[in-house]
Every structure is written in structure tokens, then in C-alpha cells.
């Protein structure tokens, strides 16, 4: 079985995000970018399936700007076998919307015929939580979202999902799309020998046009704003004062 893992290049989770002065989005120029953390978990899971003898090949795909090849190198350094880069934008500030990404992925799935697509449940940049579901709809494949456990048995996958009420276990027929949640695994550190080997692994470069997909945005961003700054706190001398203050504000 082949496993396809889409990975997105996003602003690093350690970076303090700044909104652009004109409110059109966040500033990404000269900012550290990394692989979306949920996608790292997906890559890790795919590699574990391969190590367990349940998959033969792991293919990573990224759709976006050319610099996303760094993200793909990370996936290769973790242990993916090869990578496909689909260049769909020139400006690092251009975000390709989930539907366009899903359409391109659907074409790649047609070509590659994977038994499983393992994706992050969402990307931490704009938290859409949509690509996996859209891909499933486009392909007519089964889906298991928010996976915190995954077992592959024959032509079925057993997925434990993190839902509002707790955990739900479902069985889906393969081929399937699984989107992964935070607790599925802890991604490995890329070792130096694997980082060096990754340089020599194949990375195919394509464009959105190669797949005949129009990536023109359909959504308009009206405004991006900083969260309101929290007002400074107040230190009170003792519990009595605290209770008095709370009463005064009408919260108790």
C-alpha cells in the first residue's frame, strides 16, 4: 500500500504573529516557516505504518509556494520516500484555499493510487479544518477525521476519533482519508543521516496548471486584526479585598 501525506508550510508555531499594517493578513516576509504540526503527526504515522510492514511507500505532497520544498525535505528527512511539490503561488502571502488544494490532491490521488491519505486535521495558520473532508467528497472515499488512534487491518482502517463527547471508534473501508489529531503520536526528530539522505530522495516539481486546477481565491479576507490586548491585572493585598472587588464588579 502507498500512503499519501499532504503537508503544508505554515508560520512556525513559536513565532509571534504580527498583523500587516493594512489589515490584509499576517506578515510572512522573513518569518520562520515550518511544517504544520498536525502534518508532522501524519508523516510520522505514515512512516510507522511503513515500519510495521503495512505500507510500502510514503509520498509527501505540498501545494503552495516554491519554498514549500523545504517542508517536503523535512518530510523526506523524517522518512518519507519521495515528494511532489505543486507550485501554485509566487507570493508567500498567497494562501491556497482548501477546495483548490483538495482538487489538486484528488488529481494526484488518481495518478498515484494510494491506499490511504493521511492528512493533518487542520493547518495552524488559518484553522480551516476542511481539506481532508473536501477531498473525501471529491473522491467519494470514506473518511475518518480527528484520529487519535489508527489501526490498519486488511481493507479496513479502525479510527478512534476525538469528538466533543469523548472518544468514538469507527471502522472505515479503504481507500480512505484519515485526518489526524494531536494525540495520535509524537513525531520523531529527523536524524542527521536521514537529513543527508533526504537530499538525494526524489522531489518532483509540478504546477497547479499541470493538474488543470484553477486556484483563484473564492474567499475575500475582509479584515485581519490583532486580538485585543489584555488589560493589566491588579494585585490586591488580601483575600478580603479580592472578594470585595469581585462583588463590586458584580461577578460573584
Amino acid at each position, binding site marked *: 500500500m502507498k500512503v499519501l501525506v499532504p503537508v503544508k508550510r505554515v508560520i512556525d508555531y513559536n513565532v509571534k504573529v504580527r498583523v500587516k499594517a493594512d489589515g490584509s493578513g499576517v506578515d510572512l516576509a522573513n518569518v520562520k516557516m515550518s511544517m504544520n504540526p498536525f502534518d508532522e503527526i501524519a508523516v510520522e504515522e505514515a512512516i510507522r505504518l511503513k515500519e510495521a510492514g503495512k505500507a510500502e511507500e510514503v509520498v509527501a505532497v505540498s501545494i503552495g509556494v516554491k519554498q514549500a520544498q523545504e517542508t517536503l525535505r*523535512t518530510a523526506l528527512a523524517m522518512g518519507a520516500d519521495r515528494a511532489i511539490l505543486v507550485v501554485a503561488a509566487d507570493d508567500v502571502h498567497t494562501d491556497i484555499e482548501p477546495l483548490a488544494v483538495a482538487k489538486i490532491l484528488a488529481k494526484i490521488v488518481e495518478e498515484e493510487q494510494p491506499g490511504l491519505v493521511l492528512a493533518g486535521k487542520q493547518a495552524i495558520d488559518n484553522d480551516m479544518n476542511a481539506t481532508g473532508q473536501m477531498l473525501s467528497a471529491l473522491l467519494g472515499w470514506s473518511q475518518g477525521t480527528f484520529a487519535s488512534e489508527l489501526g490498519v487491518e486488511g481493507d479496513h482502517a479502525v479510527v478512534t476519533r476525538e469528538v466533543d463527547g469523548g472518544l468514538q471508534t469507527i471502522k472505515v473501508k479503504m481507500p480512505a482519508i484519515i485526518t489526524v489529531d494531536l494525540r495520535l503520536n509524537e513525531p520523531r526528530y529527523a*536524524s*542527521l543521516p536521514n537529513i*543527508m539522505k533526504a537530499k538525494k530522495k526524489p522531489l518532483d516539481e509540478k504546477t497547479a496548471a499541470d493538474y488543470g486546477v484553477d486556484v483563484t481565491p473564492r474567499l475575500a479576507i475582509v479584515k485581519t486584526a490583532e486580538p485585543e490586548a489584555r488589560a493589566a491585572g491588579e494585585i490586591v493585598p488580601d483575600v478580603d479585598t479580592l472578594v470585595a472587588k469581585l462583588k463590586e464588579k458584580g461577578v460573584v
Partner: protein
Amino acid sequence: MYDNTRPDRYFTEEHQAFRQSLRAFVEAEIIPNVEAWETAGRLPRDLYRKAGALGVLGVLYPEDLGGSEGDFFMQVVVGEELSRCGAGGVCASLGSHSIGIPPVVKHGSAALRDTFARPVIAGEKIAALAITEPGGGSDVAALRTTAVRDGDSYVVNGEKTFITSGMQADVITVAVRTDPAARGAAGISFLLVEGDTRGLTRTELTKMGWWASDTAHLAFNDCRVPASHLIGVEGEGFKAAMMNFNDERLFLAVQAYSMAQACYDEALAWAQQRRAFGQTLAGHQVIRHKLVDMAARIDAARTLTYDVIWRRMQKLDPLNVHIARTSMAKVTATDAMKFCADEAVQILGGMGFMRGTVSERVYREVKVMTIGGGTDEVMRNLAASQLGI
């Protein structure tokens, strides 16, 4: 300071990818355990194995021995990132292979490389280098430990001291006098001695700093070592030792400015958050200026070290110039560390005197850096002679 995690003229994408892995590794596997290891006086063997699996121990070694054949800047990444734990003892013992194994890899027989270098690179065995003797460290040519050939063996007698990883080491590269008649640099050879050799007694030494590193006094009493454990050619040990020292000093420079950086990071965070006399400490001009002086010295030491390494990789200078600049880089970097540890403790106030802060620990690690691997004075002597002063 500039962001050293981005590619530039020294570091490629691969360097920075490894830096990212290593940073996460240090944060998850090392920092939470530093206090426990400092108390235990040694590192757990499991850490060597984990570091081996990550490729930390094999950066500069050939692929056929399990290494990665990375360049010197990859080793800089290792030095900088390991130092973020703020405990020089961790760097010293986890890094003792980098002084113990190069003679084996560069000059050793195929059998020695395979039997001893390979498991060290994998983190299964621990390596040490034993040159210094109770009678003298700086004057290497005066060493007195002897190895006398007897049939298929050498019989080793003498003492070594201050040996990093000396208690735990399985593989010890020992500088010995194989020709007792020869004086000075002639007649010195490297011999590989296994840790469990009969007649070898190891005694643990307690120290001002570097607690997580086990440091030993080694006494060799009629130790029989197979003659096949001779590393390289008999009598050519001194030259090999000098080049080994040179590379050790380059990476001690990296460790020194990185420890200075760890102090700076702690002092800056403290100064920006702690308030006195109506504003943050960093708001007081005296403290702001201290922080800038620290940053400037770190930057200068780091820039010099990068340049020495870069020019060496480009083969731009004759050896004497490289050796002189390496010596100067070590002194510049340990000066920066001395200055920054002192100022960081000062900025932390009473807290800087308390166990548990990075600055307190690094302050106790300044002296080993200005002594070990070649003292300040010896570095200046060497630079002067190499520059023809």
C-alpha cells in the same frame, strides 16, 4: 542578535534542519534532566545511545563507520545546540568522543576503527582521551607514561589525570612514550586502552563545575595492551595530538560563546521581567549597557570562530595562520564566557548566586574553559610562535 536558525553563508538548509531536530531533542531529553545528572556526576548510557541514533556523535566521521560526513559547521550546530542546556558537563562528556576517537578514525587500522570507533559513533561505547599527567598538562612533550613492547603486547605504566569521561569510558586513547630513550616530542605514540584492562585503576575526581561529566585519575600498573592497539605509526603520536588539540579548541570556542549566550538569554529574560525602582531592570541604563556589552562579545567571538572555520574549509591560509587564529578564537570565546557569566550573575542579583540558575552554573564552568584543551597562556604562546612574534 540575528536569528542563527536561518540559512546563511555558513549554514545550509541541512544544517538548519539538523539544528531544529537537535533543539527539540535538547529541550525534551536533556534540559529536564540536567539537575539529576549534575547530582549523579555522570550521564546515563542511554543518552549516548539516543544521541548516537540522532547522529549527534557521528557528524564528522565517515559513513562506513556510521558517521554522516558532515562539515565543520554541522559540528558547530551540535556545539551550539547542546550548549543551550547551559551545562558544560553535558557537552564535555557527551562530546568526549570528539577528542578520543579522531586519532582512531584518522590513523587507526581498519580493525581498530571497526571494533572501537563504530560503537562509539553509535553511542554504544564511550570514548575518552588521556594526555594530561599529574606531572604536567601544558607541556605534552614531557609526558612520562611508558608503553614498552613485550612480544604481542605493550606494557603500560604511568598516570593520567583530569580525564573527561574517564570513569565511564570503554575506549581510552592514551598518549604514551613508546621510546623511553627519546626525549620530548619524539617517541610519543597513541595507544588504545580498553576501560576494563587489568591493572588500570580509575579514581573519580570532584570538581568546581562540569558535575554531569565524570572526570578521572587513571593509574596504569603493568597494563598489557595488544600491540595491534597502537594507533598509527609508533613515535608519531605528538603530531597527531597537536592537530587533535587544534580541533578540540575550535569546538571549545563554540561551546564557550554558546555558554555565554545561555547566560545572556537568561539575564535578558530576567532583566525584562524584573522590576526595581519603578521600572524593569532592562529599563535602567546600567543594565541595558551590560546586556549590549555581553551581546557584542558573544557576537565577536562567534564571528571570529565562524571565520576561522570558514577559511579553513576554503583552505585559504597556511597552517600556522590557522593554528594561531584557532588559539585566538579560543581565548576570545572563553573571555566572552567569563565576562557574560560574571555580568549575568550580577544582573540576576541574589538569584544569580543560587543553585538552579544557568548563570550560577556557567559561572563555575568558566575556569575549566580557560584551562582545559590548552590554557589561556599556552594559547597565547602558541599564537605568538605561529605568527612569528
